[in-house]
């Protein structure tokens, strides 16, 4: 009985305590449900995002660069399909066998094989190794034929930059290549869109317009597992090709420039004298920018780098030359504007001029006799311009020269390699060389020698501004969103109306005090080319449709010693490095002028023999293409 009593009491204890436990259980379960609720209902969004972040991986594909076209819409920097060869190590059965097979098929060298092995060890087995970035079509076909034997090999078609005119536009466009770390860090846009294998502009407009040309990445979304392996593709988001950019250049003329300067070092620039459009700017020698796309070989690079004619320099805007006699129109204009001389003013040239015991020679030893402005310009009499410069003084000359664009960058900030050049004055010498100006220096500045340095494009612009009647033009190489037509530009300039859409006033456009003076200089330049005894008379075209006016220049690269002057050597007898640079500036047609050009042949000898004949050949083409160009001006308007 006691036992059973005790049993009942025990049962009571157990039941009572079980009740407490039961209550506790309910509380705990409710707690767990609350936790579930908070995770799955309250924070569901957060965890869904995290889960998607886990499983979805985005692959950015390289963007497609925008095309660059010439004025007529011809693609001068486009994109091309290229064939690539990838290996996916995961799918390869026998890696060494595969490499031997590929080595035979594609003639790979041992260095390349070592590189493949290295990238294999660095990458995940499902990441592809790029064996070849640019297979030729025949190689691509070969690979496809043997594909059954090449397990794990993937032939891929992709898009790459291409320059269809090879070396014609190299200095304008530059080229693209793999960016280095600094370039990625410096440009926010590149940083955002960078993917391995992407190429960026390294030089020229490709670099300057990178953010317009670059385009947006195509994006592929994949579902991946915990180890990063792609399981399936979720979506493909197309990228947008970069902006199309239209230049003012004319490929036909640009090509002709290249042919005319073949195997010479030098530069040709052609400009529309009203709109400031650059029709051509060619620097010779050039090189093929396509070489840089897939990594230039060491041999090819050394060939370009060590070429004594310096193809890497864009001579049109980075080459600095003494303008020589091509400066004479500006000297004459400055003197006329400052009323130092008039058309009747004459100087007697005896072949030299003495000043404080120093002798300044004219190029013609016998002298020109009594010469007026027109004759002096025509025959490029140095003595006349020594005297005019002496009377004018370098500071007044400097003001006129700078007005016409010397000593300033022509294209502003479009090319970071562009040089400013130099037009000296007394203040400049004091500040930079710490010495006072010497009168003798004024004399040689008057014939474009001495401290004075200019780029070919500056000389071209200077000529254009004389040709258009003395109005400032704004040179440009990219077609505006609202391009002004040639006719409009010309008309507004002639009627003295404001033609530039920007807020520049008409006064700023006028570079002269008296337009008569411009006419006098123009006539003198006409005489220089089209009248007997003119320095470029031999290069004249009589047909008024093509007739042009110009001024030769011969820039000394070193001082001529007395002995050399007496020897009067032929060009071939002088070492290449010591030969004069040949220059020529011109504009045409003489009636109703439209275009200005400047030509420089490095170490080409005299301007009349080496540079002026090039202008004769070029002008016909330039004028012939004018009507075509005019028709094209309303062609699709593309913004930058």
């Amino acid at each position, binding site marked *: 009985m006691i036992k059973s009593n005790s049993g009942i009491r025990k049962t009571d204890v*157990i039941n009572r305590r079980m009740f407490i436990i039961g209550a506790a259980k309910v509380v705990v379960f409710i707690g767990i449900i609350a936790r579930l609720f908070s995770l*799955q209902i309250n924070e569901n969004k957060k965890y869904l995002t995290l889960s998607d972040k886990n499983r979805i991986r985005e692959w950015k594909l390289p963007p497609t660069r925008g095309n660059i076209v010439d004025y007529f819409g011809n693609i001068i920097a486009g994109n091309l399909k290229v064939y690539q060869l990838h290996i996916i190590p995961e799918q390869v059965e026998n890696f060494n066998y595969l490499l031997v097979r590929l080595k035979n098929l594609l003639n790979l060298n041992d260095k390349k094989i070592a590189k493949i092995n290295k990238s294999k060890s660095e990458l995940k087995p499902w990441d592809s190794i790029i064996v070849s970035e640019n297979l030729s079509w025949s190689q691509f076909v070969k690979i496809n034929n043997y594909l059954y034997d090449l397990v794990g090999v993937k032939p891929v078609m992709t898009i790459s930059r291409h320059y269809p005119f090879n070396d014609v536009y190299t200095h304008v466009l530059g080229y693209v290549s793999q960016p280095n770390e600094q370039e990625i860090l410096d440009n926010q846009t590149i940083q955002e869109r960078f993917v391995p294998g992407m190429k960026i502009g390294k030089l020229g407009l490709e670099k300057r317009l990178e953010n317009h040309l670059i385009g947006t990445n195509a994006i592929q979304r994949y579902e991946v597992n915990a180890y990063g392996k792609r399981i399936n593709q979720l979506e493909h988001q197309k990228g947008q090709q970069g902006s199309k950019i239209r230049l003012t250049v004319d490929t036909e003329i640009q090509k002709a420039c290249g042919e005319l300067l073949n195997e010479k070092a030098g530069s040709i620039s052609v400009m529309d004298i009203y709109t400031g459009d650059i029709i051509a700017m060619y620097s010779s020698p050039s090189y093929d920018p396509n070489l840089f796309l897939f990594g230039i070989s060491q041999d090819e690079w050394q060939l370009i780098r060590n070429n004594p004619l310096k193809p890497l320099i864009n001579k049109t805007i980075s080459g600095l030359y003494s303008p020589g006699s091509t400066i004479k129109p500006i000297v004459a204009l400055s003197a006329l504007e400052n009323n130092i001389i008039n058309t009747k003013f004459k100087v007697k040239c005896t072949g030299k001029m003495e000043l404080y015991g120093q002798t300044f020679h004219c190029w013609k030893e016998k002298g020109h006799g009594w010469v007026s402005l027109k004759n002096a310009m025509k025959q490029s009499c140095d003595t006349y311009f020594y005297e005019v410069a002496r009377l004018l003084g370098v500071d007044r000359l400097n003001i006129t020269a700078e007005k016409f664009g010397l000593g300033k960058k022509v294209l502003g900030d479009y090319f970071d390699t562009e040089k400013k050049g130099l037009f000296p004055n007394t203040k400049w010498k004091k500040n930079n060389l710490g010495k006072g100006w010497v009168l003798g220096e004024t004399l040689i500045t008057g014939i474009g020698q001495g401290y004075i340095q200019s780029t070919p494009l500056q000389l071209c612009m200077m000529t254009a501004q004389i040709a258009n009647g003395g109005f400032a033009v704004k040179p440009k190489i990219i077609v505006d969103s609202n391009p002004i037509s040639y006719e409009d530009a010309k008309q507004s300039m002639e009627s003295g109306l404001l033609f530039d859409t920007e807020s520049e006033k008409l006064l700023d456009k006028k570079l002269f005090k008296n337009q008569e003076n411009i006419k006098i200089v123009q006539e003198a330049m006409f005489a220089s080319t089209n009248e007997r005894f003119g320095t470029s008379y031999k290069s004249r075209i009589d047909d008024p449709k093509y007739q042009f006016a110009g001024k030769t220049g011969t820039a000394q690269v070193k001082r001529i010693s007395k002995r050399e002057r007496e020897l009067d050597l032929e060009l071939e007898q002088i070492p290449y490095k010591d030969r004069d640079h040949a220059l020529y500036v011109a504009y045409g047609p003489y009636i109703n002028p439209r275009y200005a050009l400047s030509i420089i042949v490095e170490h080409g000898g005299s301007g009349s023999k080496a540079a002026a004949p090039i202008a004769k050949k070029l002008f016909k083409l330039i004028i012939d293409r004018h009507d075509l160009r005019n028709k094209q001006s309303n062609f699709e308007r593309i913004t930058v």
Partner: protein
Amino acid sequence: MFQHDRLSNDITLFQKIKKLDYILLTSIILLSVLSVFVMYSTDGGEILFHTKNHFVKLAVFFPLMIFIAFLNIKFWHNFSYIIYFIVILLLIYVSFFGIMSSGSQRWMNLYLFVLQPSELMKVAIIMCLAKYFHRIKIENVNSFTSITIVLSIIIIPIIFVIAQPDLGTSILIALSGLIILWLGGMKIKYFIYSFITFLISLPFIISFLKPYQKLRILTFLDPDRDPLGAGYQIIQSKIAIGSGGLNGKGFLKGTQSYLDFLPEKHTDFIFTLFSEEFGFIGSVGLLILYSIIIFRIVRIGAISRSNFARLFCFGYAFAIFIYIVVNLSMVLGLLPIVGSPLPIMSYGGSSMLATMIGFGIVLSAKINHKQMIA
């Protein structure tokens, strides 16, 4: 009394079948079927190794449970101590000749399958203590001798299990034992005192923990301190559960699991997968199913005449409850990660064997609920 004994001994097989608890049985079958489907999902929607094995184990252990149910509760009472000692012997055997796997020695190879005796101890300790408290007079429960005995019964197996090392299972064994002590009438103040002592000695206990165990505690406190290392499991588990939402991502559509972001998805983290695919509604449903099972076990205990059956049922119900709580708290980031399976759902033979034995004894108690045990 004798008559009662005879009566219960004499019931026929048919009567036994009739007296089975069908609500409990249905819940167990439901849970088993669910577990096979979830296992099928962990295999990525194919019948692979885990699904097959899990199904085979269910097919073997479920009949075993019925067989156990048909044995008289008296039999289990009589053999409780012996079963306890056999499991102790197995633990000793394992600590010398057990199979090493991932740094711990817990398993013995029985050729047909690999047995983890510590899982069996979870049930054996309840049986052993239930018998002890059944036999002892209520007046003697708090005597020094009896406290010494019951504490020894709990501590001896724990020593072996901790040495394996297996912290999770030893905690579950300890909790299963302590609940019988509580139900058996041990003074409340003893529990309070020892709880306080435990809290005070916690720093010392922690200093004895293995480095990986300490890491788990630190990770629990701040899972983001090493998101790709120690914190990875818990972070990924929370992402999976949280992203499940109200309705879940759908059967076989749990991205976290089938893309391999979930570790241990077959075993300890099975609930994570379930919750990801079936959402809040599914998870609560599963909890309700478990609650029904627990409630039925408690009810069987309440109608049992013998204190042995009553203590066993209450104790076992609590044990099931604590397995669920520990497992869920772990995957929900409420507790540090200690290895503890979810009953029936998790892949693992020993755990399922022990659970089924437990259910078998509970069902036997139901069939024989009028049985008195001297």
